[in-house]
């Protein structure tokens, strides 16, 4: 783990008068699995959405391999053109809490769409790669199914395949198991574990503490739009310094018991 793929400096985001992100500094190294935890409203999801340029932000900078993400230059305040944004987003994968699969497309076409349209791959090549990734997430026999014909866990695995098939430099995972029935969480996290083992760079928001402990390289605790604590998972989760983190971990533990 050497040079940072993602570099966030002084990121500030306000909704009206509420400050959701308050000067966040964060680096994600190549191949690193960085887990973000925090109570709802602490700004974790907004952080991911800023990184993928889904929402504008008020100050600071976000760079991917040295290139400013949402704006023409750090602090310029000028949004990039739609085309430039698309090119950058193609290098950042995102998996959503509510899956957000395209309901009118089969699992195969959900994965192949970005390859064909964004990456400009030939149809056969795109389909081959889509099928490869669907097989990787254990859905070789579900390629022709529409999202409505799949279980939540299967849908989310399609969501992961859709994101990683683009071979992104960075994968964003936004509470990807929160909408799942408990018995389906494992199959999705296993896929993520496999990706981590292969060196995929990931920025992951989750409430699965045991997963954070054994699969995360580093944990960041966000509180009121700031990074309150960070370090290796065993330290941060096993030996929380602030009272707020202690309280947060107790609440999570109670819920998962």
């Amino acid at each position, binding site marked *: 783990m050497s040079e940072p793929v993602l570099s966030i400096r002084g990121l500030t985001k306000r909704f009206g008068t509420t400050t959701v992100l308050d000067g966040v500094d964060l680096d994600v190294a190549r191949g690193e699995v960085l887990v973000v935890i925090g109570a709802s409203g602490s700004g974790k999801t907004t952080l991911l959405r800023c990184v*993928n*340029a*889904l929402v504008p932000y008020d100050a600071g900078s976000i760079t991917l391999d040295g290139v400013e993400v949402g704006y023409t230059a750090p602090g310029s305040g000028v949004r990039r053109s*739609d*085309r430039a*944004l*698309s*090119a*950058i*987003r*193609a*290098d*950042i*994968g*995102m998996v*959503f809490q*509510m899956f*957000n*699969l*395209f*309901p*009118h497309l089969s699992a195969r076409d959900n994965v192949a*769409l*970005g390859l064909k*349209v*964004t990456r400009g791959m030939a149809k056969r090549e795109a389909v081959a790669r889509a099928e490869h990734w669907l097989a990787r997430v254990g859905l070789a026999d579900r390629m022709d199914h*529409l*999202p*409505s014909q799949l279980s939540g866990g299967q849908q989310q695995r399609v969501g992961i395949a*859709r*994101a990683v098939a*683009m071979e992104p430099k960075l994968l964003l995972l936004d509470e990807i198991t929160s909408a799942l029935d408990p018995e389906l969480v494992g199959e999705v996290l296993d896929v993520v574990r496999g990706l981590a083992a292969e060196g995929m760079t990931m920025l992951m928001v989750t409430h699965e503490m045991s997963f954070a402990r054994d699969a995360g390289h580093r944990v960041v605790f966000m509180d009121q739009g700031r990074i309150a604590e960070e370090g290796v998972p065993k330290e941060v989760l096993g030996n929380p310094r602030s009272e707020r983190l202690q309280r947060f971990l107790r609440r999570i533990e109670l819920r998962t018991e």
Partner: protein
Amino acid sequence: MIEAMIYALPFLGQGFLVTLAVSGLVVAGSLVLGLVLGTALAFGPVWLGLPIRAFADTARAIPLIVLIFTVYYGLPALGVNLSPFWAAVAALTLFKTGHVIEIVRGAITSIAAGQMEAAKAIGLSFVDRLRYVIFPQAVRRFLPPWINSVTDSVKGSALVSLVGVVDLMMAIQQVIGRTYQPMPLYLLGAIIYIAVNASLSVTSRRLEARFARVVAS
């Protein structure tokens, strides 16, 4: 009664074609304009959306006959000379566009916001997001109300007779002017309009079924 109808039929052919032409032009024109303006209303900035909304609301709130007279009598006063046929087609198209804008906007905004975000996340440009993700889903919500509005266009086309265009309605009036037998002719006219609309709804139901199968969610 039946003889009067059979006598009249040959005189109605030309007018029937004009009715089909007016309806077809209006449906096609309003579809194109409505798609563009409705999409702009759904995604565009406020300065673009406000005039579109004002136009759509006005077009839908005033009687069609008033719109036709306004265009037919008003344009020459402004120095624009259109034939009655094109003046009527223009007025009907404006009217119908107001409806299509509303249908398009409704269909688009019924698609969950997450769809747009997921499409952005795989790097699709705005046009591609519409083409591959939003429109294929929106079309299913768009079709039923739009098909109803096509029937309305056929019925509304009868108003072009009021500015002297010889459509089916006018042709019926002309035959009545010769035979003085209004009842059989009006009933015959109703039957023809009903037949056109019935065949339209059969076609459209097939179309709807096809799209419903494609998006079985």
